[in-house]
């Protein structure tokens, strides 16, 4: 029974069937069979990894990536209250935000969905984040990575300002910086002195996972 529920959860999510996925998650919450909330979270995480791969190989498209993330978010609303905080299982902390002057959050939120499902503790600073807030969050949470999103060419200089301030406060070496967003390119990333530029949220999650593994 447990195995069936978890299989149903995963299959429904991969069929982008919100109703069936939530039904399976509810069965898990009720403890049908021997399923635990952690088992259900793991099934969601497995399913999202498949979604991510499908997106990266071009089999799936942005709308499917977004909707799978939305279904996962709804499922996690059911499961999260039942989970005990267990930081030992986290792959690490990632601080994420959109630069000052920019309030776009689509790419950032997709990344958060996927990174959380992959097992990261994600601190979401939101949008329009000033430089000091990024830097203070690095000091406070000592994250593995700092993710910065930027969609506007008028605000891409903010990334350089964050890097400069991290250097000035002598904490640049303590955190990897990853950036993504429509305004950015590989060339920009090189000139800004960040550790990685990613074209999409799934690749971003993969890179942070590699950084976590190599720690």
């Amino acid at each position: 029974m447990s195995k069936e529920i978890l299989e149903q959860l995963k299959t429904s999510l991969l069929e982008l069937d919100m109703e069936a996925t939530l039904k399976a998650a509810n069965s898990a919450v009720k403890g049908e069979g021997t399923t635990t909330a952690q088992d259900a979270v793991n099934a969601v995480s497995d399913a999202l990894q498949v979604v991510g791969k499908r997106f990266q190989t071009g089999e799936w498209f942005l709308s499917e990536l977004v909707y799978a993330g939305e279904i996962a978010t709804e499922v996690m609303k059911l499961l999260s209250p039942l989970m005990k905080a267990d930081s030992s299982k986290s792959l690490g902390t990632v601080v994420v935000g959109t630069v000052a002057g920019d309030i776009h959050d689509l790419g950032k939120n997709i990344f958060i969905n996927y990174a959380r499902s992959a097992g990261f503790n994600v601190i979401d600073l939101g949008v329009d984040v000033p430089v000091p807030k990024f830097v203070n969050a690095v000091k406070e949470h000592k994250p593995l990575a700092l993710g910065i999103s930027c969609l506007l060419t008028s605000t891409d200089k903010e990334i350089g300002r964050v890097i400069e301030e991290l250097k000035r406060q002598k904490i640049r070496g303590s955190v990897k910086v990853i950036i993504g967003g429509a305004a950015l390119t590989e060339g920009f990333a090189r000139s800004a002195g960040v550790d990685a530029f990613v074209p999409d949220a799934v690749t971003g999650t993969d890179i942070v996972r590699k950084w976590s593994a190599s720690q």
Partner: protein
Amino acid sequence: MNFKERILTAMNHEEPDRVPVMGLIVDPATVNKTLNKKPTDLVGMIKKPWLAPLIARFMNTNRFWQSFYYSNTAGCLESALKLGFDANWTIYALMQLRKDTKSALGWAWHDAYGRVWDLDTDEDGNTAVNYSRALLETEEQWERWVEAKKPLFQTLTRNVEGFHKKLVKNYGDRILPIGYAAPGIFENSWQPMGFVNFTRFVYQKPDFVKKVISFHTDHYLKNLEAVMKSGVEVVLGGDDFGQKTGPMLRPELIEKLFGESYRRVTDLVHKQKKKYIHHSCGNIYQLLDRFVAWGFDGIITLEPTAGMDLGKVRQQVGHKLVLIGNMDVSYLLVRGSREEIEEAVKKALRDAARGGGYILSSSHSHPLVDPARLGWMVEAAHKYGKYPISL
């Protein structure tokens, strides 16, 4: 050949005297740099609490927007003329300056369709306007909005006609204005509700999505008709179907949702013996064959930073589409050397210009694009783009 013959010959996949050059200049930063004009500090004025409501009262009239967009686009065409372009596209919209607590400035432009556009200033003091979020997150909000804005949509269509007539009258003997109807049917459908909501509605409320698309298709067709009454020869629809790595929606879904709409668009344009160019950013290889089937005459941007390669595109579609753009705006036209620009132009000509059907252009408008480098691009086109191409 004059500018018009050059563009229209290339649009017919025949070889003109030399490869035509088209501008995508719509950015005030590029216009001001080209014409040596000082920017107007709109954001600085709005930041003054006592002044902002007065500006709003002044701006929120039809007369203001008619004059604002005409003078902006006239500036774009003046810049394009100064740089030696054969054509440039035009932009018309209808905004309202509204108090908006979610915007950093406390004020934002709300457009007729339900989008919020944030206002900011770039480092040179030019106003930067960017789509930031949606106003219509539920079906009920959308229904109420379109009902309430009916008179505004009618005004918009009337304005579009007058705007283009004036441009054609004042510039049509010197440069080809590429007419612009409105934001595209896909963008007008999803941006006012946000991409996440749109995606949810696609799966959960397909009839509502169909209704939204049908509404925007009808509105778009009315605007197109209005644009074509001005006498423009070529119209451009701006609708970004792509993102950096591929189409935003599954191509089959794009066909299902928007195929009929765009077939109606091209039918209307072709009945009037005009040409339809489609602007789509992003990686759109998987959509090119559909665009051909929908009847598009040309495709513009072919964004190199999203992996679009002119040679590959030409190989894929042959001469079924006129290809426009592909000159990089992330580095080449911002900081590239004269030699690098010359090489890029030569490569574009080799890849796409034989037999006509190619119009040289930047891949997008961009505030950092340097007019001097646009000038080098035009010089290279004149030097190497004479037909027959012998590169």
